[in-house]
């Protein structure tokens, strides 16, 4: 191993990641255990224990991954792309259905893999590889066809699961990476307008009525407080009732008395808001913003465009998921089932995030190493 790797290693970023993941672990613990919270009850909870394993294992894996020069992965672009696509197709035939969507594949009966999560990191690597080729230009509309096709195929498969939220993450990653890769402003403007029009058309002509309802219920959850609006209302009640200083860790009534649904997964931020209040929520958001900024910074300092675009893809993924997930808990965004990376319970999401961050750490560590 090159000595520069350790010299350049971004320990601040590593520490930030581990701190946020550990914080998430505590919040998962709070949602997993009702009643008195002690080390024993925490460890007695399957959820907490599994998340603990993910955090420890994920951190170790991430660290090991970061030691490998990320440029090595360039050679495996095609296998990565098609392997991830194969998993996505497989989930349609072999996956099991949860809440009306086919998203999971069971692996050994222990771990439910969500290929769409892994596909996010796969698309970041492969798209970055595709757009960082020396000869790649983004001057004409023709130049955009390949990248769009590249992302479009897996995205369509995900959209059909159906998993609208993850499809949107794909769009955001793609646009951010294209933007940094040199997308022309004119193209960006045209694509934005087309995107808005396309969304409106899709809303009215493509989406099923139940999908539409789910998308718009967040504007007025009291229309259906018992079913669709229930999660949103309870989440808002939880966060609002945290007030300025919060109800105290493990003291949130919405959380501890199970009023909050999906509190350890999609609505983990509601637990933060309720138990730690505005102060805790803002500190958490600032830490998260610091993480994102740090990733962008790693991107700026990267030795090549491949590393730069990987960082942009990861940072934009985290930013968008933060916006949509937290926005959902305070009902400024629709409920789309997007987890909060590093915090939400769930192996696939955590694994994906750790791989992505491992790549970013690798980009930082290898900024000075020679390409050959």
């Amino acid at each position, binding site marked *: 191993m090159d000595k520069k790797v350790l010299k350049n290693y971004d320990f601040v970023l590593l520490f930030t990641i581990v701190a946020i993941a550990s914080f998430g672990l505590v919040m998962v613990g709070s949602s997993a255990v009702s009643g008195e919270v002690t080390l024993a009850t925490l460890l007695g909870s399957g959820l907490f224990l599994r998340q603990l394993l993910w955090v420890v294992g994920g951190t170790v894996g991430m660290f090991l991954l970061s030691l490998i020069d990320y440029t090595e992965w360039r050679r495996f672009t095609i296998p990565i792309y098609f392997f991830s696509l194969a998993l996505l197709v497989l989930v349609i035939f072999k996956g099991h259905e949860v809440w009306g969507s086919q998203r999971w594949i069971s692996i050994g009966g222990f771990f439910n893999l969500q290929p769409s999560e892994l596909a996010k990191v796969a698309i970041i690597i492969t798209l970055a590889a595709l757009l960082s080729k020396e000869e790649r230009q983004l001057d004409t509309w023709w130049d955009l066809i390949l990248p769009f096709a590249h992302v479009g195929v897996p995205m369509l498969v995900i959209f059909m699961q159906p998993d609208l939220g993850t499809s949107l993450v794909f769009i955001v990653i793609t646009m951010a990476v294209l933007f940094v890769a040199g997308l022309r402003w004119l193209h960006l403007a045209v694509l934005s307008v087309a995107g808005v029009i396309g969304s409106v058309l899709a809303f009215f002509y493509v989406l099923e009525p139940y999908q539409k309802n789910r998308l718009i219920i967040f504007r007025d959850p009291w229309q259906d407080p018992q079913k669709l609006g229930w999660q949103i209302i309870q989440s808002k009640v939880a966060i609002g009732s945290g007030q300025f200083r919060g109800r105290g860790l493990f003291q949130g009534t919405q959380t501890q*008395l199970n009023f909050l649904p999906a509190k350890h997964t999609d609505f983990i931020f509601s637990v933060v808001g309720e138990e730690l209040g505005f102060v805790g929520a803002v500190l958490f958001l600032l830490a998260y913003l610091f993480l994102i900024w740090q990733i962008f910074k790693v991107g700026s300092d990267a030795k090549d465009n491949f590393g730069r675009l990987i960082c942009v893809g990861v940072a934009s993924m985290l930013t968008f998921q933060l916006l949509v997930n937290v926005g959902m808990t305070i009902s400024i965004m629709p409920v789309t089932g997007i987890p909060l990376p590093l915090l939400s319970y769930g192996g696939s999401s955590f694994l994906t995030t750790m791989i992505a961050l491992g790549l970013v750490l690798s980009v930082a560590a290898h900024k000075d190493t020679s390409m050959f």
Partner: protein
Amino acid sequence: MKQMNFRITILRIAAAFVVLVLVYNLFQIQVIEGQEWADIADTNRFRHLVQTAPRGKIISADGVDLAGNIPSYSVALAYEQDEQKLEKTVSKLAELLDLDPEAIYAKLQGHRRRFEPALIASDLDFETVLLLEEHSHLMPGLDIGITPKRIYPQQTLLAHSLGRVNYDGFGDDGLEKKWEDYLRGKNGFSVIQVNAAGRRVGAPVNNQPAIPGNDLHLTIDAGLQQATQESLHQVLAKLREKYKLEDAWTGAVVVMDPNTGKILANVSEPSFDNNYRYNFKWPEELPQSSTVRTYRDRTIAWRRPVGSTFKMLTGLAALESGAVTAKETIRSTGVARIAGFSVPEYGYAAYGNVDMRRALEVSSNIYFGTLGNRLGREKIYDYIAKFGLTGVANGEINDSVVKNAGFDDISLGEQIHSLDYYKELLNRGEVFYSSYAVQMAYGQLNEFTVMQMANYVSMLANGGTHYKPYMVEKITSANGEVVELFEPTVLARQDFSPENLQVIREGMQAAAKGSRFRNLPFKIAGKTGTSQERGKDNHAWWVGYAPYDNPEIAIAINLEYGGLGLRCEEVARDIIDHYFGLKE
């Protein structure tokens, strides 16, 4: 490279903007609206459970519960998010309660407070409750509650006086209404914390135990009440069957302690069962008449002409005012013309020369008609007032007959009968008959309640003290402390001459020597009365007291359409037998 890093900076700013938007919205929700959301969180998790305070009991003087409470079971169902689980629970519950599952869903849906279990059924019998308990593990969220329910264990006994409670548990009439403030306890509540499934978590946050209502202890002797009611019921039946008096379905009796005003028995026939008051079905054999099938208490809210039982009043008025002496005799010739009005004796019997005692014994209309003519109307009114028989008090005419008798322990509610006979009578100046005083004197035209007549005969027995009749002797709290104790109240004391009273009493004693009262171990005083109602059978009355020498009970009996005053004597005898333990 430079351009790329510039664009990365744009994305960094965008990320910061995203966080800013989130922080702004969090500030709005958590800091500005925080308290409102905290309140909602509290309504989410706290549930107020009302503990209905048991209503005070109503207990007779001999310790019988006349009104009490039994636990009533109700079942409620907490909301369940999982539709499959809910369906299982509902179908099981529907099966056990023998309800349509749709009806249960309707109740769940119609329930507005999402965080409280919805009431599914109430007033369940114990068997059903056991069945539910047995299967409760199959029905998560099931909540079986207990609330006290008012019952009247003695059913028809004293039903008119007791009254009932309405659906909300408030007294609607009778004692239940009049003493509402005492009977009603203070509901308790507890605040418990529940989880989203509606299940209780931890100890109550706040607990205020219910304070049971106070118990009413009555002067009523349940045994005597029972004996009197049965006797009245049987005698009325006999009148219909044996004497073909088809209308003899109704009647009333008051038994009073003449030395205190305590009401020992207060019977109104036919009676009913307050347990089924809102859907009570009168026995089919009762005539459809609304005056028979009535919830009005005939002892206090029903006036009938009292006939010859009035003659003691005329006699005493005449003696006191010197219109006659005890020894003076008047000739009874079967029928006589007095002040232009033809006065017949009963059955046109000629009793010859009768003095006061003899006139009372044979109930001579001619004798008392003659006294009435000597006294004049005004003088008779004076004595009516002295015995508390009018509505006139302090020169005013009361609007309620109930108050005329001084009895106000009962709220009549819908029973209020505001026929104010005397008001009408006094205003009837233009239709003046010179014979009016004559007719009044031997008992025609005068309508009083049985309660008033019990007062009247009590005053004759005790020497002229008008005690306020009362039924509630004492009020105690649930743990036995006396809250209020009621002493006899003197409404008025008339200074009748003891000699004159003695003459009247002797006449009554002579009048109560009939075969029905033979072989009593003591003498009694009594007087029958028979009054006419046009086109109907006569009303039968009896007033009296026992024992003659040392009165313990005063009795007033009215058998509507009972034909002849004499018919009341059987009831009087049964009352005396029971009270003095003479049957055994």
